[in-house]
C-alpha cells in the first residue's frame, strides 16, 4: 500500500503554472491598457519599409494604391482596410477594418504598415 506522498498537483507543477499564469496575466493586462488608451483616429499613416510615405485622413472616403498596385487601401466611413494585396498570405486583407489610434494593418511580405494616428501624435509614438 503506497502512499503517494500527498503532493498537491499545484505544488508539483508550480513553476509551469506560475510562468503560464504570469504570461497570460501580462497579456490580458496589456490588452486592457492598450484598449483603454484608444480613441477614434484622425488619419492613417502608411509606411513602406518603415519610412512614412503617406498620411491619409480618415474622414475622406477614397481608395489609395500602395506600392505600385501591390496593395490597395480603402478609407470609408472612418475605417481603413486593405482591400487587395499581392502577397502569399493576404493576412493584411483578412485583418479587416481598423479605425482607432494604434490599430494597424501590416503586409509583412510587401513591408507595408498602415497605422492609425490621432491628432497631434508624434511620428514615433507607439500609441
Amino acid at each position, binding site marked *: 500500500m503506497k502512499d503517494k506522498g500527498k503532493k498537491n498537483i499545484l505544488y508539483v*507543477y508550480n*513553476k*509551469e503554472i506560475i*510562468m*503560464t499564469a504570469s*504570461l*497570460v496575466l*501580462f*497579456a*490580458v493586462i*496589456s*490588452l486592457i491598457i*492598450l484598449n483603454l488608451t484608444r480613441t477614434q483616429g484622425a488619419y492613417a499613416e502608411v*509606411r513602406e*519599409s*518603415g*519610412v512614412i510615405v503617406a498620411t491619409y485622413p480618415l474622414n475622406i472616403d477614397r481608395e489609395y494604391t500602395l506600392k505600385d498596385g501591390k496593395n490597395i487601401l480603402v478609407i470609408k466611413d472612418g475605417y481603413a482596410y486593405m482591400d487587395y494585396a499581392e502577397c*502569399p*498570405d493576404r*493576412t493584411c486583407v*483578412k*485583418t*479587416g477594418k481598423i479605425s482607432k489610434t*494604434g*490599430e*494597424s494593418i*501590416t503586409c*509583412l*511580405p510587401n*513591408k507595408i*504598415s498602415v*497605422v492609425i494616428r490621432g491628432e497631434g501624435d508624434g511620428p*514615433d509614438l*507607439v500609441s
Partner: protein
Amino acid sequence: MAPTLFHEVGFMKTSTKRLTALAALIATAMILSFIESQIPPIVPLPGVKLGLANIAVIFTLYKLGIWQSASVSLIRVILSALLFGNSLALIYSFAGAVFSLIFMIFLKNVVKMHTVGVSVAGAVMHNAAQIAVASIVMETAVIIYYLPWLIISGTLAGIVIGIIGYQLIKRIKL
C-alpha cells in the same frame, strides 16, 4: 543489442542509430510544418500558428539532448525555408527558432520544467522573436500591439504541443 558505430561529427559524438533518428526527426518536423502551412489561418494575425514542428523539437530535447534538438530545429528551419518558403520568412523563422530554443533549453535544464511549461515558453518566445524581427524589418514599433494576442495564442498552442510531446516522450523508446 547490436554494436553501434561511433562517428565524430563535428562537436558531437553520435552513433549511427542516433544519426538516423535525428534525420527522421528533422523530416518529421518538416512534414509537420508543411501540414501546418496547409491549414487556413483562423486568426488574421501575422505569426499566429500552432507550431506543430515543435513537437519534434521538444521530443528531441527530452530524449536525445541539447545539441541534437538544436540541430533538429535549426536544420528544419533552413530546409523548410529552402523548400517551401522565401528568404524573408527564413529570417523570421530562424530568429523565432533560436530564441525559442534558448528559452526551452534553459527552462528544461536549469529550471527543470515539465514539457508543457517548456513548450509554452518555446511557443511564446518564438512568436515574440518574430514580432521583434518584424518590428526591426518594418522599422516601426507598432507591431508590438500584436504581442498580447500572440502570447495568448502561444500559450494555448504551447499547452497542446506540450501535452502531445509528453505523451510521445513517455511512450516512444529511443
